[in-house]
């Protein structure tokens, strides 16, 4: 799946993925998609929490070993 933007936070620990995603989402327009890739143990959980207020939608989650890649629609 191709997305408008890509964020790579592989190797970064807890608040960093969330902060980079929040900064990216701020400059994106409604309807655009972003792919975020990370391998933090609680990475997937944090991203789900980020989206759970209903403003963002998770379109796709793919796993490759410990690395998780999530596509979000803003």
């Amino acid at each position: 799946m191709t997305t408008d933007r890509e964020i790579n936070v592989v190797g970064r620990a807890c608040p960093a993925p969330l902060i980079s995603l929040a900064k990216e989402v701020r400059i994106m327009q409604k309807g655009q998609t972003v792919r975020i890739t990370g391998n933090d143990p609680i990475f997937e959980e944090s991203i789900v929490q980020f989206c759970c207020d209903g403003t963002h939608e998770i379109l796709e989650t793919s796993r490759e070993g410990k690395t998780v890649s999530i596509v979000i629609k803003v």
Partner: protein
Amino acid sequence: MDKKKATILLQSGDLDKALCAFIFANGYASLGIEVKMWFMLWGYNCLKKRRSIFSVFNRRTDPVRESAYRVLETDNILQPMVEMLNRGGVQHLPMSKLNLMGIGPFLFDKMLKKKSIMGLEELIRSADELGVKFKMCQICFDAMGISVDDLIVPNVEVKGVAEYAKDTMEAHVNLFI
């Protein structure tokens, strides 16, 4: 639904406690919650610029330091003395446990770097970028002889307890660290 709010008051100047406060601030801010951080007493230390001991007395006569929030007539020798003993600086904070005369923070920093966890300075910068508001207590400013240009973050507001009471009553979460 109106915007959710949170306040964090940092009173402690310890590295570990400041780290917790800034991780929470970043977490709240990235989830779109409006965060106001308050700083009192030793909480300033993590925002202070590290300066030489000898610069303390020279800077007392600097007109830039005569900010609107201070009563310079009641200052005496104690303000520069406090500043000499309590120089602060984000890279020089002690830890509340296992300080080991300064070896503790050094090893802790290494530990965080190895695990690629964000350090305190990086967290302060990113909190500032995410729009966290920094507010300072005016009486601490006055009593401890600090001025706005001593701090590493711009756009710091200097307020009193009335503002703090208003902010905390509006907020959903209030933390005191």
